[in-house]
């Protein structure tokens, strides 16, 4: 497991000398890292374009949780994916050994690679023209394989240890999504799994960029989460930040006076992150944008007089991108929907951009918080915002305190100018991460 890096180490310089790749690996030259493929698995849409259309249309994936009987539970809502049949997307060989979260990750990676024009099982003769050691995988999950593990624990207690699946040995594991994507697509380049609670998905993409700059031409990166079995859902409720509201349209209300916590979601996004020159050389069809800046910070300990680290993460990501606040056309907020956290985020944004200084949105109100999947899904939406010049609204929120000084996109999508977007994510116990993406 890896903690977010200190600011001093986030600005990795291009360092082709450390490339462990093969002679076929072109060394990073411009140091620019671009996104060439996007796969999204989300409660409001399967596939990147379906997800984006749903965000713009304000179609919500938040409903009563259907995976088990929630009567007697203090909360009952979830951003649940209901139309995903793993058998349609994956070989039967993978089903006995994968948690639902891993199925989402592997399928989102398939979609992202198809979008990027990289053949599955590309290998040395693949369409990408990249050797197996030229491609790495860096993913994040905050929760691991809860559903799978719950089933195996039930067998352990009810039937005995000899009934527990041998696949439990890795199906629960934080690194399993990286491993399965790597195996399925024969990607043997530098790979990693990062855990940073709900900020981890952005950290994974930040580390993917670092990996590209060190000489690996292509890295599959992002995050997913899912924990909607009774144990996983209970664990989320125990965290104390899940709303007990029962009306799906009045439950997850970030920045609203009525904010009462979030609705948990499942899913996330996987991106294909590439060296810009290598992508051009292999003839990548679409360049969605550049991962122009990344930074991660950690909050001071409770009781400290120092401020939370979110603003510093945003400032460092901007500096890393070589941009000023005025260059940012839209901010995708973390949007905790816990009043003191909303206030802290509003204060960070006000401090950096000035009161009402930049449009801010949180379309994760349509999916629930997808934990490590939330940041990468927001990144996907931010890239689409730069492409289409429009930002989806923050659904359901209506009544934002004036002293937040937030120009929150409410009600309807808004036309957005600017060639750069800032995406923020916070994780419990102090994680802050920020990524700046720019239009190609």
């Amino acid at each position, binding site marked *: 497991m890896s903690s977010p890096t200190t600011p001093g180490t986030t600005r990795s310089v291009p360092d082709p000398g450390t490339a462990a790749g093969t002679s076929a690996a072109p060394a990073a030259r411009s140091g620019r890292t671009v996104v060439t493929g996007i796969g999204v698995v989300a409660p409001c849409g399967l596939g990147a374009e379906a997800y984006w259309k749903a965000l713009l249309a304000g179609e919500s994936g938040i409903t009563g949780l259907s995976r088990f009987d929630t009567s007697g539970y203090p909360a009952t809502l979830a951003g649940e994916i209901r139309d995903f049949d793993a058998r349609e997307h994956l070989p039967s060989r993978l*089903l006995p050994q994968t948690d639902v979260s891993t199925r989402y990750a592997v399928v989102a990676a398939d979609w992202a690679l198809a979008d990027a024009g990289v053949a599955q099982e590309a290998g040395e003769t693949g369409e990408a023209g990249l050797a197996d050691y030229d491609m790495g995988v860096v993913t994040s999950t905050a929760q691991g394989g809860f559903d799978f593990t719950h089933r195996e624990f039930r067998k352990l207690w009810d039937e005995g240890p000899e*009934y527990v699946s041998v696949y439990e040995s890795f199906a629960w594991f934080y690194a399993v999504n990286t491993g399965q994507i790597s195996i399925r697509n024969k990607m043997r380049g530098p790979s990693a799994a990062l855990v940073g609670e709900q900020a981890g998905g952005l950290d994974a993409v930040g580390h993917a960029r670092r990996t590209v700059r060190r000489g690996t031409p292509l890295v599959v990166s992002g995050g997913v989460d899912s924990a909607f079995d009774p144990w996983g859902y209970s664990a989320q409720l125990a965290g104390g930040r899940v709303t007990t509201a029962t009306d799906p349209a009045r439950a997850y209300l970030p920045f609203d006076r009525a904010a009462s916590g979030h609705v948990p979601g499942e899913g996330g996004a996987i991106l294909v992150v590439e060296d810009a020159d290598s992508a051009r050389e292999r003839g990548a069809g679409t360049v969605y944008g550049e991962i122009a800046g990344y930074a991660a910070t950690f909050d001071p300990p409770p009781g400290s007089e120092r401020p939370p680290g979110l603003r510093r993460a945003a400032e460092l990501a901007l500096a890393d991108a070589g941009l000023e606040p005025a260059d940012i056309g839209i901010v995708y907020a973390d949007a905790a929907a816990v009043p003191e956290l909303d206030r802290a985020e509003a204060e960070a944004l006000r401090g950096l951009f000035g009161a009402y200084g930049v449009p801010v949105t949180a379309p994760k109100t349509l999916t629930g918080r997808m934990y490590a999947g939330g940041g990468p899904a927001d990144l996907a939406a931010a890239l689409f915002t730069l492409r289409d010049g429009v930002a989806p609204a923050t659904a359901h929120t209506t009544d934002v305190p004036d002293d937040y000084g937030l120009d929150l996109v409410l009600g309807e999508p808004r036309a957005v100018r600017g060639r750069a977007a800032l995406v923020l994510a916070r994780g419990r116990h102090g994680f802050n991460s920020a990524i700046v993406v720019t239009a190609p």
Partner: protein
Amino acid sequence: MAQMTLEELRDTLVACAGEGDAVDLSGDILDVPFEELGYDSLALMESAARIERAYGISLPEEATSEADTPRALLDLVNGITASAV
């Protein structure tokens, strides 16, 4: 005690570890190495545990991991079930 058939072994493998798209398990696979059938050591551990429960036997770890074809595994299983009568 009942002898395990190739059909039963096939069903056990599929239930425990699925089947590959490129492999025809319905053919004559008795002497095809598990590796070629797409079953790795974990798939075989999972299947062995299922066989142990179904037949009420204990499969020695080393001999099981050395059984690299369906015929070898069936001989091992059926040798144990026969001697357990």
